[in-house]
C-alpha cells in the first residue's frame, strides 16, 4: 500500500506532464538528464533510488492493479492521471523521512558495511571466526577489513562500545519499533540467523515492498542521526562517503570539472567522447544543483529573470508546450531556464 501511495504521490506531482515511465526511472534512480530534472522540478527528491532493482515487469503489474482499483488512469499518450478515489488513497499516506536524493542508493552500502561488521564482531565475541561472510562484494570486504584494523577491534571493550553506539542511535525518536524490528532482523551473527523479507512479511503481516520502504526510511533516519549526534565516534566512520557531497552525478561532475577548467562544450565532447545531448544533460544538471552556476553564456544579451517569469506564466513544465510558446529558444535553452526556475520555485515552497 505504501508503494502505491508513493506512486500516486508522484503522479500527482508530475501534473500530467510526464509519462507513466517517469516514476519508474525515478524509483530506480536512473542517472539520466531527464530523470534528474524531474527529481528537482517536481520536488520528488525523497523517492530517488527507492527501488534500484525494481523490474519493469513488476512495476507494470502494480500500475495495472492500480488502474483496476480505479486509483489512476493512463491515457493513450501513456500520461497518468490520478482519480478522485486515488486522491483519497493518497491522503492516507504517512509522511516519509526519506531522502533518496541525498543518499542515492549509498545507504545500501552503509547497511552492507553494518551487516558485515556486526557478523564479524558477533563471531569475534563468540571466539569462532570460521564463518561465510553475509556480504559477497569484495569491495565491502576490503572496507570492513580496513575499518576493523583502524579501530583496533580486538581491544577490550571495543565491541561493547560499538554496541552502545548502535543502541544510542536506535533510540532516536524518529524511529518506530517497526523500523527497528526490521533492521535488527536483517542483521545476523554467531548462531543468530537473519530473517528473509518473505518471512518478515509473513510474520508482520505487511506487504514486502512496504517493509522495504520502511527499511530504507530507517536507514535514512539512522544516517541522519549519526551525522547529528556528536557523541558518536565509530558510526560516523562507518558512514564515510555515504552522503553525496556533490549533488551532481559522477559523469556530470567530470563534465563540470572540465567546464570549470575553461573547456568549451565542443572540447568537452571530444575529450570525453560523449554525444552533445549527454553533455547538455550535464549542464542542465549543473544549472539545477550548483547555486553559483551561471547560464548567462547561453543567453548572451538577454534578461534571464524576465524570461523565467514569462515561462512561469505558462504554468507548465512541458517542453513541447513551451517550445511552441517560445520558438526562438532551443530545447536545451528551455531546459536550462526550467532548471534555474525550478530552483526558485523550490525556495518559495519550502
Amino acid at each position, binding site marked *: 500500500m505504501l508503494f502505491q501511495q508513493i506512486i500516486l504521490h508522484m503522479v500527482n506531482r508530475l501534473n500530467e506532464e510526464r509519462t507513466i515511465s517517469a516514476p519508474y526511472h525515478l524509483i530506480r534512480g536512473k542517472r539520466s538528464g531527464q530523470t534528474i530534472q524531474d527529481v528537482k522540478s517536481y520536488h520528488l527528491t525523497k523517492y530517488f533510488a527507492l527501488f534500484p532493482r525494481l523490474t519493469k515487469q513488476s512495476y507494470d503489474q502494480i500500475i495495472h492493479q492500480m488502474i483496476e482499483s480505479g486509483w489512476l488512469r493512463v491515457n493513450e499518450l501513456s500520461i497518468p492521471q490520478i482519480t478522485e478515489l486515488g486522491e483519497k488513497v493518497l491522503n492516507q499516506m504517512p509522511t516519509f523521512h526519506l531522502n533518496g536524493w541525498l543518499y542515492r542508493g549509498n545507504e545500501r552500502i552503509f547497511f552492507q558495511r553494518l551487516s558485515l561488521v556486526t557478523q564479524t564482531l558477533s563471531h569475534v565475541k563468540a571466539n569462532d571466526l570460521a*564463518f561465510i561472510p553475509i556480504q559477497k562484494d569484495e569491495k565491502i570486504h576490503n572496507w570492513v577489513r580496513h575499518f576493523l584494523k583502524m579501530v583496533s577491534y580486538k581491544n577490550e571493550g571495543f565491541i561493547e562500545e560499538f554496541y552502545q553506539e548502535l543502541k544510542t542511535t536506535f533510540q532516536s525518536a524518529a524511529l518506530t519499533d517497526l523500523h527497528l524490528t526490521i533492521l535488527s532482523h536483517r542483521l545476523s551473527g554467531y548462531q543468530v540467523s537473519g530473517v528473509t523479507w518473505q518471512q518478515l512479511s509473513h510474520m508482520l503481516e505487511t506487504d514486502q515492498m512496504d517493509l522495504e520502504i520502511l527499511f530504507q526510511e530507517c536507514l535514512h533516519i539512522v544516517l541522519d542521526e549519526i551525522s547529528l549526534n556528536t557523541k558518536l565516534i565509530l558510526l560516523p566512520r562507518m558512514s564515510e562517503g555515504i552522503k553525496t557531497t556533490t549533488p551532481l552525478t559522477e559523469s556530470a561532475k567530470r563534465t563540470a570539472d572540465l567546464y570549470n577548467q575553461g573547456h568549451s562544450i565542443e572540447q568537452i565532447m571530444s575529450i570525453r567522447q560523449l554525444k552533445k545531448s549527454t553533455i547538455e544533460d550535464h549542464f542542465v544538471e549543473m544549472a539545477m544543483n550548483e547555486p553559483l552556476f551561471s547560464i548567462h553564456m547561453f543567453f548572451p544579451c538577454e534578461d534571464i529573470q524576465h524570461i523565467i517569469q514569462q515561462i512561469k506564466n505558462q504554468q507548465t513544465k512541458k517542453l513541447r508546450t513551451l517550445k511552441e510558446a517560445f520558438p526562438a529558444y532551443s530545447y536545451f535553452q528551455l531546459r536550462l531556464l526550467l532548471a534555474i526556475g525550478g530552483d526558485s520555485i523550490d525556495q518559495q515552497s519550502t
Partner: protein
Amino acid sequence: MTNNLHKILFEKFGYSSFRPGQLEIIQSILQQEDVVAILPTGMGKSLCYQLPGYILPHSVVIISPLLALMQDQVEQLKKMGEKRVIAFNSFLTQSEKQTLLNKLEQYKFIFLSPEMVTQEKVKEKLKSIPISLIVADEAHCISQWGYDFRPDYLRLGEWLGDNMDRPPVLALTATATKQVMDDIHTHLNMKKPTQHIQSLDRPNIRYAAIEVDSREGKFDKIAKQIDDFTGPGILYTQSRKKADNYAQKLITKGIRIASYHAGMEQVDRMFVQQQFLNNEIDWVCATNAFGMGVHKNDVRQVIHDHFPSSVANYSQEIGRAGRDGADSLATLFYTKDDEDLSIFVATNDFPDEAHVNVFMEATRNGIQPTQLVSQSLLSETHVRILSYWLSRKTMEETVKILHQLRLQKIQQIHQIKDILLNSTCIREKIVQFFGQAINSKPLNCCSKCGMELDVIVESSKANSSYLTLQSWENRLSSLFHMID
C-alpha cells in the same frame, strides 16, 4: 608420512579421519604422480588438493569450469582462515586482473576458469611462477561424451601440452565411463596416471519414485511425507513461484520451511542457509539454485516434485543427503505428463534458428544485444548462449549445434525418467550411468527392489516453534552476546 598427514588433517581441517580414497590420492600426489581420481559428489574431493597444498612448496592451480563451484571452494578455504586464495574469472575488470597477475605467486591456491588459461597474459605469468600441482576439477567436462561438455576446457589440454616439464596433474570427477576416462587422459596430456577409483554408489541413500494421479494429489503426498518423516530435508521444485507457493502452504501446515531461489536477494538466500544450518528450519523448498555452498551433513531427505534435467543433476541433488553416512531418503513424485513439463522447462529458454536470425540481423544493423533483451525480442539466456556460439562458429554451424544441444537436453530427461520409471533397480542404473557396476545392494535399496520407508527415516519429531521475532533490544544484545 601418514602420521604427518593425519596431523594436518586434524589441525587444518578439523577431521579425525580421511574419507575413503582421500589418503591414497594425496599420497600419489605427493609422490609427483599424475592422478585421475573418481569420487562420488560431495564426498570430500576438494580436500584431495587442499591438504597437499599445505605440504607442497609452491602454488596449487585449480581449473574449475563451474563458477558457483569455484566461489564455494574459495569461500570454504577462506572460512578455514586461508588468506592466500584467489579466484581468477571473467568477472574481474581488466585492471583488477592486472593487479592480481602481478602478485600471483603470492597465492597458495589459484582458481582459474578454463577460458582464463587461454589468455596470453595469464598463460605467460603461469609459465613464470613455480607451481606444485595443477588440478582439473569436474574433469569430465573435457569430454564430448560427458554429459556436460565444455569446449573451453579443451584448451586446458593445449596449455598443458605446451608445457614440457609441467607439475603433476590431478583430474577430479564423478564420472567413470570408459570414453570419458580416455578423453581425460588424452586431452589433459597425462603421463601414465595413477587411477584412484571409488565406488560412486552412496549405499546410505535410498531411492523412491512414486507415481501420483494429479498435480493436486502430488502436493498432498509431498505434504504428508514431510509431515510423517523427519528432516532436515530439501524439497526441489521447478519454478520460483512454485517454491514460494509450496513453502507458504507448508508453513500453514506447521512445517518449519523456507523457500530459496535465484529471484531472492543474495542476503535473503544467505539467511535461509543460516537458518537451515542452525536448525531453525527443517526444510528448504528450492529450485536447483540451492545446494552449492550448503554444507550440511545431516540432511535426511531430498524430495523432487519433477524429473530433473539429467541423471547427473539428479545425483547432484540427491547427493546432498546423508553426507554423515546415516540412512537417508530420496523421493521423487511424478505424474504421467511430468515429462512434457520437464522438457518444456529445459528447452523453453533455449534459442533456435529464429533467435539466431534475430541476433544476426541486429548485429548487422549495429544494434546491441542488450537492446534486444529490453525489447523482449530475446531473453538474457538467449543472448548469453548466442554470443558464445556465434563468436566461435558460423551461423550455419551454430544453428546445427543448437539443434543438437536441444535434442541432447530432451534425451537427458528421457534418460532420468527411464531410470526412475522403467528400471528394475534405480541404484543399479544410476551407478551404471556413470560407468560402474554395484557390488551389493543394501536392504530397502529402492522402490523397485522394495522398501519400507519407516525403516529408513524416523518419523518426524514434535515441532518446536517456527521463527519468532524479538524486540530490537533483545535482538541486538543476542547479536553481540551482551547480557543486560
